[in-house]
């Protein structure tokens, strides 16, 4: 993981793909969102979806799974230590997300490919040793159609504390 200062806006990371099998969809939904169109292929036919579809939170949780997988498979880079001796930036926690859109249903058997584009870096007066990285995250089905997107945020440590401009 890079220090806040070293993260570049516009960077695109391909996160990989996930196949949403019938079993996978039902297993998640029975635990967290057992609406009939997520748990019962027969009953789902009579709903406006016309068939079994993945729970929205399942689609989001798989994004997280692939994001962690992509991060851990990146080559280890020796980070330059901070002047105060911290050897590597800690990160991970998120203050939340916005504009999450379930654009098209994810149906049983669909394979969704996820992508993350860094869009913004936010300085925090309240937390001088951390900044927020914002990213546009997107999921495309096997036909290349955008089915899922959101603006994600992550707190990342800075090498040097943020100093607001003196007015």
């Amino acid at each position, binding site marked *: 993981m890079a220090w806040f200062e070293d993260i570049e806006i516009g960077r695109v990371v391909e996160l990989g793909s996930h196949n949403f099998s019938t079993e996978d969809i039902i297993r998640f939904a029975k*635990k*967290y*969102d*057992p*609406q009939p*169109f997520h748990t019962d292929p027969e009953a789902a036919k009579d*709903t*406006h*979806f016309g068939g079994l*579809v993945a*729970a*929205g*939170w399942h689609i*989001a*949780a*798989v994004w*997280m*799974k692939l994001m*962690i997988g992509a991060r851990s498979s990146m080559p280890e880079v020796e980070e330059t230590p901070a002047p105060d001796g911290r050897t590597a930036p*800690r*990160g*991970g*926690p*998120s*203050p*939340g*997300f*916005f*504009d*999450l*859109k*379930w654009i098209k*249903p994810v149906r049983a058997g669909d394979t969704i490919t996820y992508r993350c584009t860094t869009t913004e870096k936010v300085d925090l007066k309240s937390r001088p040793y*951390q900044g927020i990285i914002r990213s546009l995250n997107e999921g495309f089905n096997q036909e290349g159609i955008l089915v899922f997107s*959101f603006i994600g945020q992550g*707190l990342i*440590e800075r090498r040097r504390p943020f100093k607001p401009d003196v007015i």
Partner: protein
Amino acid sequence: MPEIYWEDVPTGTVFTTAERTISKEEIIEFAGEYDPQPFHLDEEAAKDSLLGGLCASGWHSCAIAMRLVYDAFHVKAATQGSPGITECRWRRPLFAGETVKVKVTCIDTRASKSRPTMGLTNWTWEMTNANGDTIMTTESWLMMGRRPTDTNTSGAN
């Protein structure tokens, strides 16, 4: 047949879900599959993290809230899915062993212009712990079926 249709949830409708205690085991199980970061998996590593202790994945908090709201509302309502989440704020960590509930408020409602059998409802969710601390808030639209008999008489929109 559902008990609750779009017509039954005017703006200002408020309810609170049942409570649930979130175990360490459940947090680790979810995180192991979907969010394997040290502060969601390992108590010792979590102490040294920015979060300060073993806590649920934010996405797990969302899924837990979904299930609590399902049990209180969706199970008896003509819900038809959500187009998305306008905003979700993870305000403080959901630590292992905490007991949570969700307060749900309908803040807006409108008929669908394109689908006469559907209405839209906009909701805020607020997940709190036993001390009343806010763990998470969301704002999201939910599509709902309209009471079948009303479909042909509501031309106003």
